[in-house]
């Protein structure tokens, strides 16, 4: 049975790198007594793949990992078992059965991500930057210089920004919905740096606190975008 696990990575665990999160789950799954499937061959390893590695320093409310079970277990039990043996900062929030087959892999599905971004204490610009967000987002084209291995070229990042606004409930927090995944990917820092650049502000290092809030698949057809949270493609196991 193929399963998608959703978890949060918060607090001090933002300092744990992606590979260590993987190792963390390999051990947590054993401690929780979840009967996971292994690859065949001389050195079997757990069948486990992550939707999208999260950079060190970022927190997240929506990380996804796909695994394969040898013995099914209910969502409620599995979530409880994983949290019982877990470390503070990683909280499993969902455990869903997903369709068989390679096409359904989280890694290949990721199309977009939501982020919230705040300024670290004492690093917010000394101006009313919030007021400039709507006009920045209203532009038809946002050109930035991007470095590739060989050269530097100007690209338009506007098509990769699906949403950008200050949160009404917390006006110093900016919400971003950005293209994510292997086809097109845009980092929230780049958007923010570019935005502040238009105001003539160069942010200090470590200026932002970034939280990833959701990862989406795109189920739309014919160029129309229809974003569905990765958890929405699975079903609770009873």
């Amino acid at each position, binding site marked *: 049975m193929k399963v998608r696990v959703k978890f949060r990575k918060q607090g001090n*665990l933002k*300092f744990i790198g992606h590979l260590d999160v993987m190792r963390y789950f390999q*051990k947590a799954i054993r*401690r929780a007594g979840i009967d996971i499937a292994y690859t065949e061959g001389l050195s079997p390893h757990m069948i486990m793949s992550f939707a999208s590695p999260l950079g*060190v320093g970022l927190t997240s409310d929506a990380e996804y990992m796909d695994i394969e079970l040898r013995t099914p277990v209910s969502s409620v039990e599995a979530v409880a078992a994983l949290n019982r043996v877990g*470390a*503070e900062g990683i909280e499993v929030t969902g455990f869903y059965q997903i369709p068989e087959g390679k096409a359904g892999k989280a890694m290949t599905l990721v199309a977009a991500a939501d982020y919230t971004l705040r300024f670290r204490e004492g690093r917010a610009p000394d101006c009313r930057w919030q007021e400039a967000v709507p006009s920045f987002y209203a532009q038809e084209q946002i050109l930035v210089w991007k470095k590739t291995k060989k050269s530097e070229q100007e690209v338009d990042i506007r098509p990769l920004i699906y949403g950008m606004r200050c949160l009404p409930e917390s006006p110093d927090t900016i919400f971003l919905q950005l293209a994510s995944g292997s086809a097109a990917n845009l980092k929230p820092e780049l958007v923010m740096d570019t935005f502040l650049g238009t105001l003539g502000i160069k942010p200090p290092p470590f200026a932002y606190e970034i939280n990833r809030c959701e990862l989406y698949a795109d189920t739309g057809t014919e160029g129309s975008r229809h974003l569905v949270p990765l958890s929405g493609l699975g079903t609770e196991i009873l």
Partner: protein
Amino acid sequence: MRKLALNDEILLSVEKPARYIGGEVNSVMKRRDEVAIRFAMCFPDVYEIGMSHLGIQILYDMFNRREDVWCERVYSPWVDLDRIMREQKIPLFALESQDPIRAFDFLGITLQYEMCYANVLQILDLSGIPLLAAEREEDCPLVIGGGPCAYNPEPLAAFFDLFYIGEGETVYDSLFDLYKACRSEGLSRREFLRRAARIPGIYVPSLYEVTYHEDGTIASFAPTEEGIPAVVEKQVEMNLTDAPYPEAPVVPFLKVTQDRVVLEIQRGCIRGCRFCQAGMIYRPTRERSLACLKEHARRMLENTGHEEISLSSLSSSDYSELPGIVNFLIDEFRGQNINISLPSLRIDAFSLDVMSKVQDVRKSSLTFAPEAGSQRLRDVINKGLTEEIILQGADEAFHGGWNKVKLYFMLGLPLETEEDRREIAHLADKIARKYYELPKDHRNGKCQITVSTSFFVPKPFTPFQWASMFRPGDYLGYAKTVNHEIKAMLNQKSIRYNWHPADVTLLEGVFARGDRRVSAAILEAYRQGALYDAWTEHWNFDRWLRAFEKTGVDMDFYTLRERGLDEQFPWDFIRVGVTKQFLKKEWQRAHEETVTPNCRVQCSGCGAAAYRGGVCVEGSRKVPQAG
């Protein structure tokens, strides 16, 4: 959420911030106000090394079983964070509470190898603890050292308030109880140390005085006060089966060196190799029962989720129930995809059979440690491994499908000759010949023989504690001899040779058999920037040479001198069971090239029988008990 000692900006600018945040699964949290004693347990090297050490895991678990003690961990900050902490004056902190070490009652530092001595000073310095014990005030943590290097604590005597000589399981409870009593009576630090010095195994260097002869050797070593014991007794846990063992070791987020469950099957070694300190100081050999090991294995795997389990001991093949534990691990855990790692096994039919079950024969390599190239020199060092056994083992292994062999030797052994060194190459070549004797269709390409040599460092409490060392140029000459001879062998293309640098060896030699006067050089080298000397990229011999020169400490006095049989050594005040008389006899027998049988073949009267247990009473164990 636990508040961290370091801010985000620092943590995001250093390599592997996970080294400093604690919060690992199974790490122990307590409430500050509910414990009487706060103990910071330190391994003075980087997190990944320190977290791999079994001894600390045992003590961490044992201390935290006491409700009145909270034991936390601290490791050396890596050089990047070290610099930031100095610049920003951030005090060193413990991983669990993230509180400054300076606020603790005890700072325990394990001394596993000599090359960590500069890091010991780093730990004290970053904690804001005066480096010299004599300069510490009443509210400073008590700095206590332990581990194998504490068997000659003298080079570090100036920096420690106390040393614990021997295995931690025995008298820490008494020490904690004494500490609580002294504090409730409002007694001074000095008075606590005075009383602690009367606990067996506890050595308080400030209560002893050393005088020297004109030639620099020790004239006297004695307590400065009435009631302080002249001899410090090594502590040994005689009942390993019932001794505390961690059921739920801390599971690091980072991949550490020992990323697995470690099952200590026995302590001590029956072999009596004359160069080996562990083989002498951990006598008598004591085993854990098979039943308790099975239980530990199950619980630890359950509680950690590790995917590998490894046996730990000085010589696993001598464990009397080896087939029992190995077969148990294979039967019980192979089906759960748990790797089984079996280090320090002698190569024979049994070990080859089990190894072929637990590892991929084509990828793994076999390890032999003949230590010396010729039979003559192997007899000198009492390594009871013969050429016949090695060649037979290799032959069986090649038939079993292996084609990679690792060989470990030492150079610079006492009584070693040029011929002994060349024999290293000959032995490697003979092993290669065994391989090419196989019919071609049984072979798996070429064989790969890796020869590694390290330079021998004479250690206290060994028969070679009287031996002299050599000059760096001599050591490199020895390695060249081996290299040259290997190049002349028929199968030279199948043999690779690695050797270690010689200058580290000399410094190890000074620390291993140094006395109190060496501490001045350690302090000076640290002030000049010595740190992480065990790491090649940070090792700087010139800095140490300058420190020795500036402080007037003569390295040659400690390394090049052959010590007289009647010389009083800095470590002679420690009683380890094995007597100096026995060591002398063994030194004599080395000169006679005479082998001494192992403890199970025949008791040689080393002195460890005074502990009345382990292998020393094995014979009588089989006598039926009356009633």
